[in-house]
């Protein structure tokens, strides 16, 4: 059974299309990762599920109900931890949790019990009675997570939960997410950290330009690539013509597949090899055509390779490409009501 189902979601901000026909199915009780660079549409999708945004068109089902029509019911079921931690700097951590409990209409005893549990579970006892304005990024994020979990939601939505966090906070959050997943809470997590999705997610989807370009279990996605990943450079800084010649040469070698030219990394070539024997055959072919091997790396496929295969660029390159194009005014407008 799917706890979340998004169908043909479209959303634009002026001329900028944030979601472009997004389809997603999140199984109940799973930890589902959304991977993609900043600006891919992850946050917009999460904000729509949380009822903070209305899509231009499309269908949103949460727990079998239309979340666009039954907003209050949807809100009761979910906890949301936003990308930008929104806390009141004047309140103490405990006061913020008490406020959150009242907004979810928890009774006094249950509220106190849950606050105490979460303080202990998220290791916040030392500082929970201090004002939030004095908290570090990690403390704020833990407090925000506690707020999202206070009413024991069936669905927890986390938008980039560990961005910029210290190792200790990240490890506390990861441990809690694993525990929640084991307790049948459905978790939808967006991230642009490959290792986070790889480590935590039962299933995942890669989002690029507002739509899902690959989805499944991380291991399946990696194994679907069909072999080990090789990165080849025939010169430190090659060019497109040379890279294209090499691509034509190696794509015909037995056991080589999915050859992609990575422009951002000096026209290096990324491809898959079915076995180690293919590597030696590759060197022979290159030397016959007078190409030298400047660098060659060989590794087990990662989620970055899955992303590369689907988009022709690594996640980091996609991040860098989008970083220059980001419109902070528009992003601010998106996050404000």
């Amino acid at each position, binding site marked *: 059974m799917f706890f979340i189902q998004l169908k043909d979601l479209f959303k634009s901000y002026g001329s900028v299309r944030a979601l472009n026909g997004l389809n997603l199915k999140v199984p109940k009780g799973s930890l589902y990762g959304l991977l993609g660079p900043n600006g891919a549409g992850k946050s917009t999708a999460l904000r729509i599920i949380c009822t903070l945004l209305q899509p231009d068109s499309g269908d949103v089902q949460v727990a079998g109900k239309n979340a666009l029509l039954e907003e209050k019911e949807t809100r009761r079921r979910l906890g949301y931890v936003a990308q930008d931690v929104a806390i009141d700097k004047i309140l103490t951590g405990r006061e913020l949790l008490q406020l959150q409990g009242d907004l*979810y209409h928890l009774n006094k005893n249950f509220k106190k019990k849950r606050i105490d549990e979460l303080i202990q579970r998220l290791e916040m006892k030392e500082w929970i009675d201090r004002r939030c304005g004095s908290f570090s990024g990690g403390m704020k994020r833990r407090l925000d997570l506690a707020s999202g979990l206070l009413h024991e939601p069936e669905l927890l939505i986390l938008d980039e939960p560990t961005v910029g966090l210290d190792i200790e906070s990240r490890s506390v959050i990861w441990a809690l997410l694993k525990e929640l997943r084991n307790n049948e809470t459905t978790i939808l997590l967006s991230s642009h950290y490959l290792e986070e999705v790889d480590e935590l997610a039962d299933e995942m989807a890669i989002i690029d330009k507002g739509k899902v370009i690959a989805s499944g279990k991380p291991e399946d996605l990696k194994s679907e690539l069909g072999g080990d990943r090789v990165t080849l450079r025939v010169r430190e800084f090659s060019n497109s013509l040379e890279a294209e010649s090499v691509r034509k040469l190696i794509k015909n070698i037995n056991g080589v597949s999915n050859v992609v030219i990575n422009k951002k990394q000096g026209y290096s070539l990324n491809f898959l090899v079915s076995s180690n024997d293919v590597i030696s055959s590759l060197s022979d072919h290159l030397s016959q055509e007078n190409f030298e091997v400047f660098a060659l790396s060989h590794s087990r496929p990662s989620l970055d390779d899955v992303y590369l295969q689907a988009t022709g660029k690594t996640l980091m390159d996609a991040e860098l490409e989008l970083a220059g194009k980001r419109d902070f005014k528009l992003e601010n407008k998106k996050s404000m009501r």
Partner: protein
Amino acid sequence: MTITNSSLHQEEHFRNDLGEIIQETSALTWRLFIQLIRRPSTLFAGILQPLIWLLLFAALFSKAPIDFLPGSSSYGEFLGAGLIVFTAFSGALNAGLPVMFDREFGFLNRLLVAPLSSRSSIVISSVIYITTISLMQSFAIMATSALLGYGWPSFGGFLLIAITLLLLIFAITGLSLGLAFILPGHIELIAIIFIANLPVLFASTALAPISFMPKWLGWIASINPLTFAIEPIRMAYNNSVDMKLVLINAPYGELNGYSCLVILFILTVGLFFLIRPLLNRKLA
């Protein structure tokens, strides 16, 4: 009379909803008061500024001819009503700021993701908070005026002052909350507050009667909401409360105490209906 299961269920549902609304509204209001207790500078600034005005203006115009000040025995006494209203007006005009900061810093999203029984709780909590603060500030000015020898109203007068101030505070709070949802950021809201504050004061009967003003300013003063609040309060200080007494000799006619309160009431209700669709849309 037979009570059906359905009506019992509806009653229980209503009671639950009401309980939830009270819980969320009190929590949101308490949050604003915690902020005030821990950062009381705005409260004190809101009292200090009109107090300084009261002291300086009363001294500056202490030799002003009394004939020009209808019903007052000194300029300080005349000025008191204006500054009480100005204090309430300034306080209410700031009502939108906490909401604007919540919008800007994303805290409003935290509230909107919560299954609030009524999103009006967000607005109601702001109104309760600002009304309390504005009344506290206004009463502080009244107390200081009394200490300076400018008088204290009778019980009826005090009641009239409270009603008048409440109407003005509700109207201006509504306006400010509306602006907080229309404007893009707090800089713009502060700019409007800054621009509106003093001209609205000067273009009212707070500092001088209409008869003292040039014709064009007299016209502006006689349609200025502050004037409709100032004159009943001035009456509450000067005479026994007689709502039929003509309080404003406006270029377009004479207005008594009732007229002033009715105009303030219409303004409050009108502004409420004006901003309601906006709040519904923004808090949907």
